[in-house]
């Protein structure tokens, strides 16, 4: 085993130190940078909202005659949008129904699959692998879970457990392919997982036309999940928050334990920091790559379960939405730490919940959320940029790392 490794990965040392440097860079940044990155991203988003608002455009026509009018138009435009975002994500006293007022529970609902898939990316990242394939793993997980969920009829509890297990297996298979190819042939996991994402979409479209199709529907959509196969709602029928959230929190605890307390996690971190040193220390790097991608895929598969057994209840080709890609940004924002990922997922869940309310109440397209999210990650990934914007001295940190 270790012999094939030395043959198959003749990576020059410079590469590995570079990879580990990336991980260190992402994990070492402090919380201030994260907060400032969010602020800068929101400011840029605000500028976009303001310049595309027709009221601002109209007021700027007589800017020199009445500059205050322009400024107040900008203020009302941006504050309305972000106000709607905030209220939609937390508490909205103006909503007509009391269920609608408590947006915080929508935030939790949106966060659930993000936590799980974010953990998938986080775990692989700690072992030095970029799992861009959460999207495909979610689709496979949801398909497997769906096949068990509407194809079988089992007693309560057992059925749900079977669905969860099936989803984890589906995701693990898809992640495992990338891990296996990485370990055995050196195929780069980024390319393989990107390609597997698209294969997964075609595969599910095929299955939805054939094996998994609802015979009573003309659309490519599966039958509804069995009543026993769905996550129970945590707060009654008025809110969509489901028991998948508990699974997600357990997964955070599990991954935190795995990474920080277990032998396996130690091996992963060692491989991520320096595969050559790990190999010299007697660790089986190829086995590490395979198992970490199996577990990572299983976590993403659980995000698929959260989708199909929690919110969607039936399978279609849009089951994964943009969760798989959001997962990458969640993991980066969470600095590849399990609890960091948890809070990053809550923030992005809030963006999703609030974005919907912003689109309805302030007429600002939900796409602005994607802009803000990606800017946050860009700024977090480039601490020197944020430091130069705010003129923060970096001497202490650089001194420490030198």
């Amino acid at each position: 085993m270790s012999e094939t490794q030395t043959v198959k990965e003749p990576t020059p040392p410079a590469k590995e130190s570079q990879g580990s440097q990336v991980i260190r860079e992402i994990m070492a940044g402090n919380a201030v940078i994260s907060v400032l990155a969010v602020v800068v991203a929101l400011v840029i988003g605000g500028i976009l909202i303001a310049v595309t608002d027709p009221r601002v455009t109209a007021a700027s026509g007589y800017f020199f005659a009445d500059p205050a009018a322009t400024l107040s138009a900008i203020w009302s435009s941006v504050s309305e949008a972000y106000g709607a975002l905030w209220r939609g994500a937390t508490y909205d006293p103006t909503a007509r129904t009391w269920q609608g007022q408590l947006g915080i529970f929508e935030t939790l609902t949106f966060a659930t699959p993000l936590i799980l898939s974010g953990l998938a990316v986080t775990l692989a990242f700690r072992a030095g692998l970029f799992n861009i394939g959460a999207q495909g793993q979610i689709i496979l997980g949801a398909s497997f879970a769906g096949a068990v969920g509407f194809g079988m009829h089992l007693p309560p509890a057992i059925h749900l457990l079977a669905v969860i297990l099936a989803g984890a297996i589906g995701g693990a298979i898809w992640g495992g392919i990338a891990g296996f190819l990485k370990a055995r042939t050196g195929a780069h996991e980024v390319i393989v997982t990107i390609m597997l994402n698209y294969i997964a979409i075609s595969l599910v479209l095929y299955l939805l036309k054939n094996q998994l199709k609802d015979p009573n529907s003309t659309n490519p959509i599966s039958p509804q999940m069995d009543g026993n196969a769905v996550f129970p709602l945590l707060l009654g029928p008025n809110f969509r928050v489901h028991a998948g959230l508990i699974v997600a929190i357990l997964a955070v605890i599990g991954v935190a334990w795995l990474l920080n307390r277990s032998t396996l996690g130690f091996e992963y971190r060692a491989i991520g920091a320096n595969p050559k040193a790990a190999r010299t220390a007697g660790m089986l790097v190829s086995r590490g790559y395979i198992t970490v991608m199996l577990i990572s895929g299983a976590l993403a598969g659980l995000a698929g379960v959260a989708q199909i057994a929690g919110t969607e209840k039936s399978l279609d080709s849009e089951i994964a939405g943009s969760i798989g890609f959001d997962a990458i940004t969640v993991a980066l924002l969470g600095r590849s730490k399990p609890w960091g990922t948890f809070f990053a997922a809550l923030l992005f869940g809030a963006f999703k919940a609030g974005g919907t309310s912003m689109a309805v109440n302030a007429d600002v397209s939900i796409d602005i959320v994607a802009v803000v999210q990606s800017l946050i990650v860009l700024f977090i990934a480039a601490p020197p940029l944020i430091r130069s914007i705010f003129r923060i001295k970096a001497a202490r940190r650089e001194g420490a790392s030198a």
Partner: protein
Amino acid sequence: MSVTANISPSKAVDRVAVRSWKLPILFGLLALFAVVVFVVLGPSGQATFRISQEGDAWQVPDLAVPAKVFGVVVAILCVLLAARAYQQMRNGGRIDNWVSMTFTVAFVVGLLVWIIGGTKTQNITLVGLFTGAMLITTPLVFGSLSGVLCERSGVVNIAIEGQLLAGAFTASLVSSITHNAYAGLFAAAVAGVLVSFLLAAFSIKYVVNQIIVGVVLNVLVSGLTGFLFEKIMKIKVDGATIYNQPAQLPDLPIPLLSQIPVIGPTLFRQSIIGYLMLVLVAGIWFGLFRTRWGLRIRAVGEHPKAADTVGINVNRTRFLNVLAGGAVAGVGGAYFTLVAVSSFSKDMTGGLGFIALAALIFGRWNPIGAALAALLFGVAGNLQSILSLAGTPIDGQFLAMLPYALTILAVSGFVGKSRAPAADGEPYIKG
């Protein structure tokens, strides 16, 4: 972080002695597939390929092939070639190129005859197949050329999708405002350069991981174009969306050449973007492999330290190459809104940027290889949409998977040795 099977130079020397059984195994499996599918499950009747269009100057008769007989011939040929490949691998440790090439061509043609023979109508118009394929192939070629320019100099470009989308959006907007398609084309190139500028600035200046930047830029461009699409392009003046009605680029048929059956309509009856594609493929190939400029770029991509030692400014070379790649991909994006479709729609590139990435890898980081791979993927994609109407023995979704599956086989070493430039993805820090 290079993007494929890492085979360092020292390894390449050892490799001569090592027998790789991947290819013979793959050939064997495909030959088995040919025997089972083409012969046992082969359709009866004929597969007809229509070559000429009505109104062509030269009329070429239709090509009718008896599907079953042809399938048997192809299957036998495949089995023989697979056996030959096995034998060669056992004796010499390597397989002759002609064996692999003949096998591939025979298998693809056999598959095509089998598919057409299995449809209800049992015929296909080659002109339609190829001209339709160009709608997919053209942006793919531009996307993969962008990838070639970036990755040959050592910067991984995952943001091709974002560059295409930015080009498509800007071309539509500017062409609508100026009523001049060429202004739109120019603006698209500028938009591509802007996306590239972000990629270059973050990955070269701030040394952020290139894959992270690429992934994030795709999300950023998708969000930005989606947001501006809602805010600007949906504005109606007198009931019409005036900011999303781009003037289109006209077709410029080349006299005489455009009359050649199949090839004429495919290659010589295109808009300026189509001709630009042909020029760029040849030009970038020549530039990379036959000029001093290309040698420098490849040196920077393979061994930046050595390049630096002889006085090449590594990071400036990379910066310029990434910007050039952005311009190329931006023009490819303009094809969507100025030629293929008459207006912009949200996320209209639909993952083609990632197929371009696949074409780049499958074409082994070579402009001509990438263009041929793009053509293959374009034909497969168009075949899928033709077949979804005609009713076939093979589900269109499996054809849709083909580019991605082939790429996975390529990066894991089953199909040739697809090797990235050695320093691809490696930031260069002088010191």
